[in-house]
């Protein structure tokens, strides 16, 4: 709310307008698709399974049970960390996070506290226009870094176990299914480096893409194998609009943080962040500070709501898990695990642009999934000259990648090429017939209607069952029409 004032020269002066920069950090939980659970041999598959049929003393928290960590889950956690350029700690351990909740059978979750497997990583994402703009306002620093990409700091990537699932029925009761209890989860935490809702979505999609490339999780938000929590606050950043030559910007780091949980799709993440930005802006403009709290998101209303009543004293009393010996010499795993990393999407995209002369857009699209990228490369094989065509075919879904083997594609194209009629004499004969039978079109062309050419080409293509070389046909047609 700005009040216009008049200075002594009668010119309108606007009050300093406050701009707010979103400061966002995201926590993503990825459910690994190992065969067995994190600390026991129960099947980790819990989707569409009868309740409490994949449990055992360990994941049910029965008296006397003990956890034994799943090697593959840990390897995959480190793999994710490597893909996110993290440092791998040489020594690590599990810790107990103690709290009470009905879906937590042991009364503590085995997680990691001060020595996670991976930390201090980074992920590069492409910036949106909006962000580029907002950052020009927010900072006057000129560090010479690229403006079209942004680096998101990854604070840590660690391992923990999932809880059971609470189902609420219509009565006064809650029902619990422990099939999901103990399923391995990898938690990825970012620094508060995200500054817009677009960046947040881009980040989430990138994480999803990378995790799927690694084939360690289905990473599906709707199915719950990818979950996220957003920490968001707004930093005040002013710009004195009435003195354009002396733009001054200041950034006050916010003294509060709001955590938004329970968001089940990218669409809702967008809505939730947008709502929060609006809500927090209003509070700040009124001169108050938003309460530091946890909020839930309602899909129905598109709004976040306070969960303050649920907030118990968050004293988790972390201590090292005595039932699981510590891990050492983890760096020795790095070489082996790095060799298991596939070429990640960004590198692959760059390589496709270089090696196959694809456009940036096509390279981006063809590397959306590893399966598609691999299919593309298999289809191209040695026929690099056909790369662009093949890419187009796949992207525009002109070929059913589920039915057609990649080796067949190049053959198909070459077949088509060899079927193209470029014999000019033959084509002239057909064109003459078409022109004769379509005097209206000719007249239209002479009147200046260029579309008539398209129509006539279409006729020729129909006559030749699509096999005529379109460029040659066009050339001949225009020559004849102009004659």
């Amino acid at each position, binding site marked *: 709310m700005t009040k216009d004032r008049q200075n002594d020269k009668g010119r309108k002066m606007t009050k300093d307008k406050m701009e707010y920069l979103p400061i966002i950090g995201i926590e993503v939980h990825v459910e690994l698709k190992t*065969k*067995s659970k994190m600390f026991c*041999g129960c099947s980790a598959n819990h989707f569409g399974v009868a309740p409490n049929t994949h*449990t055992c003393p360990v994941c049910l928290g029965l008296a006397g049970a003990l956890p034994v960590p799943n090697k593959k889950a840990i390897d995959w956690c480190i793999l994710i960390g490597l893909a996110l350029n993290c440092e791998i700690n040489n020594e690590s351990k599990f810790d107990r996070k103690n709290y009470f909740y009905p879906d937590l059978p042991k009364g503590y979750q085995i997680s990691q506290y001060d020595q996670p497997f991976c930390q201090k990583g980074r992920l590069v994402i492409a910036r949106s226009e909006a962000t580029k703009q907002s950052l020009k306002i927010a900072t006057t620093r000129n560090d010479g870094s690229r403006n079209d990409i942004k680096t998101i700091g990854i604070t840590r990537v660690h391992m923990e176990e999932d809880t059971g699932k609470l189902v609420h029925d219509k009565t006064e009761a809650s029902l619990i299914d422990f099939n999901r209890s103990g399923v391995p989860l990898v938690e990825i935490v970012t620094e508060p480096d995200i500054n817009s809702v677009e960046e947040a979505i881009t980040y989430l999609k990138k994480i999803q893409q990378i995790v799927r490339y690694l084939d360690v999780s289905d990473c599906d938000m709707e199915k719950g194998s990818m979950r996220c929590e957003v920490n968001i606050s707004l930093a005040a950043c002013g710009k004195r609009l009435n003195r354009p030559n002396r733009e001054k910007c200041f950034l006050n780091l916010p003294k509060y943080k709001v955590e938004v949980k329970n968001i089940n799709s990218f669409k809702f993440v967008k809505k939730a962040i947008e709502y929060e930005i609006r809500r927090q802006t209003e509070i700040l403009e009124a001169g108050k500070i938003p309460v530091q709290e946890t909020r839930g998101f309602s899909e129905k209303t598109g709004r976040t709501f306070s969960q303050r009543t649920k907030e118990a004293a968050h*004293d988790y009393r972390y201590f090292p898990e005595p039932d699981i010996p510590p891990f050492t010499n983890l760096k020795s795993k790095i070489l082996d695990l790095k060799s298991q990393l596939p070429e990640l999407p960004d590198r692959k995209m760059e390589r496709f642009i270089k090696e196959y002369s694809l456009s940036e857009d096509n390279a981006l699209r063809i590397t959306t999934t590893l399966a598609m990228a691999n299919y593309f490369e298999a289809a191209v094989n040695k026929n690099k000259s056909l790369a662009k065509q093949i890419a187009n075919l796949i992207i525009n879904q002109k070929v059913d990648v589920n039915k057609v083997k990649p080796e067949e594609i190049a053959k198909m194209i070459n077949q088509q090429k060899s079927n193209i009629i470029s014999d000019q004499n033959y084509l002239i004969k057909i064109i003459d017939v078409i022109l004769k039978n379509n005097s209206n079109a000719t007249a239209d062309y002479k009147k200046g209607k260029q579309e008539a050419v398209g129509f006539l080409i279409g006729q020729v293509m129909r006559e030749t069952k699509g096999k005529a070389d379109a460029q040659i046909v066009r050339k001949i047609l225009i020559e004849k029409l102009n004659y």
Partner: protein
Amino acid sequence: MINKNNKLTKEQVMHIAKLANLSLNSEEISKFEKQLSDILGYIEILDELDTTKVKPTLQVTGLENIFKDDEVEKSLTQDESLSGTKNKHNGYFKVKSIF
């Protein structure tokens, strides 16, 4: 440094009880106020030990890097899983509603 005046207040005792998910009656709270403070008083002697350059022992066996393979083993049946309680419904454990 352990506080030399390690007397727990009633509020502290109640807070601990809440963290520990225990409901104590007023008699227990006063009794524990004294008893827990007494125990903490005894524990103060830990201060006399110089542990400045010492690492904590988390595992006396010296074991490291213990894992299990990612293999599926037999689970309990649904009946076995639910056998410990009468509060169940259609294969689920039942509790009073959380919300």
